[in-house]
């Protein structure tokens, strides 16, 4: 390889700056999974009976399932009996009433992560629900949102305070029988965010959840449920980090979005779980089920994801376009470096008439990373005039990585128009040379080209996130240019 490009190799090596551990006393259940564990989790959370019933049904169904093997990722078998299914920072019997009562150590943790839980958060104008291992530690801006009728709280609070809504919508998009990891999540999920936007309300601020895995050997199983009633609008952000550890940790979350007539949900993720070290030791297994249902006419669900972390990413945020004229969007940047593996993409299921979907997926592989796009566009017979456009690009940095594309297009209606395009390329030596001769260092040139490559996706992110994503990408690829 050309010597001028060597710096690219050095660019990818960098430190994971969120890899610290917070020393807090935890209240954990013993490792292992059986009906008693589930009863214990449910009891700890003082859940009503219907929740326990639902969990047990999911667990019994899970026992009949086998772990799927079709993804283009390789990992050692997971021992489901050695995972701690519930871990929470110890707290007073009644739980913190306000931020002042939250363990300062936890607040400090979030300070270090740059998540504003304190009052200065007002400046940021983002309502945050912070989830630490298995439980939500704090939710900000509750009152202000409450005035508009927006419910934004931890899932546990929602189960206790709004059981009717939970009962009505839980599992309506991702049923507990859906797939191996979603079913496991349904049985043991500990916390997550719940969000309900009433009819005609435009949520005045970005809602955000910050997930943090802290304790060792725990799995994080959170569940997010967002319901946008008729004409409602919400933009929701999700961020995640975890400490550096040599063993792998499982993260199997479920996200359900439901949009009714003319409702819009915009869901953005910046996923930065610990990716493991350069030799592939440790890191998070991120096996997540995310699905949105455009139930109403003219509804819209938009997924934007920036996946830079995790040892293994395995997720397909999907849209079921049931309502006529509904719209699904998927914008993704997935970066794999070192030994990371990602098998990610989306499913767009067109059922209603005049439904349209857009898929823009940008994969970047460096080091020994393996990056797969796997997507499905399905046009059912009923979906007259359905329209899909998919664009999947892969960028290869280095000669030991791989990029793979597995698009499935299934069309059963002749009036549908479906287009799929994919390209795979590397940063051209001529492009670098051009930048060099204009006085840009190779590293800057690569950063610039990569950012330009991802721009289409980044511009979909809310402002603050877009800046963070750009930085994150720079860090993730630091030293990888080759």
């Amino acid at each position, binding site marked *: 390889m050309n010597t001028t490009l060597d710096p690219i190799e050095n660019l990818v090596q960098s430190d994971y700056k969120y890899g610290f551990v917070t020393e807090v006393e935890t209240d954990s259940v013993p490792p292992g999974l059986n009906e008693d564990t589930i009863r214990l989790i449910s009891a700890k959370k003082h859940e009503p009976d219907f929740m326990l019933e639902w969990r047990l049904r999911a667990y019994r169904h899970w026992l009949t399932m086998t772990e799927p093997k*079709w993804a283009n990722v390789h990992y050692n078998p997971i021992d489901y009996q050695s995972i701690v299914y519930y871990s929470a920072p110890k707290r007073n019997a009644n739980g913190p009433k306000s931020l002042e009562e939250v363990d300062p150590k936890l607040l400090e943790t979030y300070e270090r992560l740059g998540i504003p839980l304190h009052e200065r958060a007002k400046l940021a104008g983002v309502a945050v629900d912070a989830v630490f291992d298995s439980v939500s530690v704090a939710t900000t801006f509750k009152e202000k949102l409450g005035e508009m009728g927006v419910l934004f709280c931890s899932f546990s609070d929602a189960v206790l305070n709004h059981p009717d809504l939970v009962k009505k919508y839980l599992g309506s998009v991702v049923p507990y029988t859906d797939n191996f990891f979603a079913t496991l999540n349904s049985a043991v999920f500990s916390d997550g965010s719940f969000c309900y936007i009433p009819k005609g309300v435009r949520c005045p601020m970005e809602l955000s959840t910050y997930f943090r895995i802290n304790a060792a050997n725990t799995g994080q199983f959170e569940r997010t449920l967002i319901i946008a009633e008729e004409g409602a609008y919400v933009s929701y952000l999700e961020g995640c980090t975890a400490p550096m550890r040599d063993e792998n940790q499982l993260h199997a979350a479920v996200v359900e979005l439901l949009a009714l007539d003319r409702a819009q949900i915009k869901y953005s993720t910046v996923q930065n779980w610990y990716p493991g070290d350069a030799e592939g030791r440790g890191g998070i297994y991120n096996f997540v089920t995310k*699905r949105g249902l455009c139930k109403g006419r003219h509804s819209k669900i938009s997924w934007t994801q920036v996946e830079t972390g995790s040892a293994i990413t395995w997720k397909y945020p999907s849209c079921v376009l049931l309502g006529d004229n509904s719209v699904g969007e998927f914008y993704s940047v997935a970066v794999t470096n070192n030994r990371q593996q990602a098998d990610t993409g989306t499913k767009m299921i067109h059922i209603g008439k005049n439904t349209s979907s857009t898929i823009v997926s940008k994969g970047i592989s460096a080091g020994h990373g393996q990056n797969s796009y796997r997507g499905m566009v399905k046009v059912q017979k009923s979906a007259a005039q359905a329209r899909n456009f998919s664009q999947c690009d892969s960028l290869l940095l280095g000669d030991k990585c791989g990029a793979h594309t597995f698009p499935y297009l299934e069309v059963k209606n002749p009036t549908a128009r479906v287009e799929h395009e994919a390209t795979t390329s*590397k940063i051209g030596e001529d492009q670098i040379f051009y930048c060099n001769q204009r006085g840009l260092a190779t590293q800057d040139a690569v950063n610039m080209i990569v950012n330009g490559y991802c721009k289409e996706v980044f511009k979909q992110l809310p402002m603050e996130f877009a800046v963070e994503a750009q930085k994150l990408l720079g860090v993730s690829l630091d030293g990888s240019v080759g």
Partner: protein
Amino acid sequence: MTRTLPTTPAEPRPLEAHLAAYEAFERSATETSPPWLRALRTSGISYFAELGFPTTEHEEWRFTNAAPLAQFPFKPVHRALRNAVTAADLARITFGGLRACRLVFVDGHFDMALSELLPHSTGAVMGSLAAAIERRGDLVEARLGRAAHHESNAFAALNTAFIQDGAFIHVPPRAVLEAPIHLLFIATKPGTVNQPRNLIIAEERSQVRVIEDYVSLAGSAYFTNAVTEIFTGQDAAIEHLKIQREGTAAFHVATIEAHHQRQSRVLSHSISLGARFARNDINLRLDGEGCESVLNGLFLATGDQVVDHHTIADHARPHCASHEFYHGILGGRAKGVFNGKIYVRKDAQKTDAKQTNKNLLLSDEASINTKPQLEIFADDVKCTHGATVGQLDDQAIFYLRSRGIGEELARQMLIKAFASTVLNRITVEPVREELERLLEERLAQPNA
């Protein structure tokens, strides 16, 4: 996130009849077959017994249900009938104006009387595989079964178990064959299974054009399970044109495996028009630097037809190019499946791979599943793929109508134009013209 598994349980695998037929065949053929061939057949049947017929749980058969093939009564033809095909029949199915060497196979067996070999001085050998096994055993032994993956493809395994006859073409180094070679496979007996096995070897710097053509005189159901292996030497050029115009009740499975050496040029066409069920696996392995290949295909399915193409362009060496163009036209209740894979192996730098699959759906009941696939393990490559599904452009029809062309004719013109981008790549003119005519005829049928 989940892959939905088929709701119907896997079909039982009725292999007994096949295994019994193999035993009977092997007993009768033992006398005459050389030991290496018997070993190859044994390996074929044992892989077949192990693999069984694929079910829809098999990723390569996810959208095509092979159960009708598994249930088709297994009656292989070990000896062809004489006089099953008359000269009049032959005139009907050969391409008028085509000056070619013609090898005719009746129910999978070579028929010397119907064949027509042009005199040539190049030293090329063409004829039946059975004869080649007797006379050129060393040449056949070195290549037969070396390209086709009978260890993973159940139909190739089944064919391998019953290797008996088929076409054999050997083009010696530097020989250039002007006239194309027309391999005509005619099915005559209903209810039988034909398993021709073809071997085409183009040695270095040779040039040859081969037309592999499947037709039928039998109206009712029969099953063709063909395997063709192609080897091209350094700097050789080959054009391989497969035409599938089987009877409307036929089942057709064909596997073409080609192995290409350094700087060879390959032009592969697959035109699929007939059969109730057609499955084509066309796999190219570019195993030398500087190979150039074109995969060109057209499938037309109407009524209840199922047509499935799986192609692989396997870039094993650097500096190879593969360009793939597949167009599908689906009407009636037809079902189309396309899966094109591009593999770029670890050291295959400077690969240039392109793939397009375009599909036209002409009716409400027609459907298509397409899956273009890239698997890339090298970084300095240019790979793209694209797939589209749509219907005829309303504006284009409107334009033609505004110029006084009737709607039906306008539609046919547009469909023909869509098909001819593929057909125009065929260099053998009389064949291209005949295919255009066949296509028009099919499109004019009321159920199209």
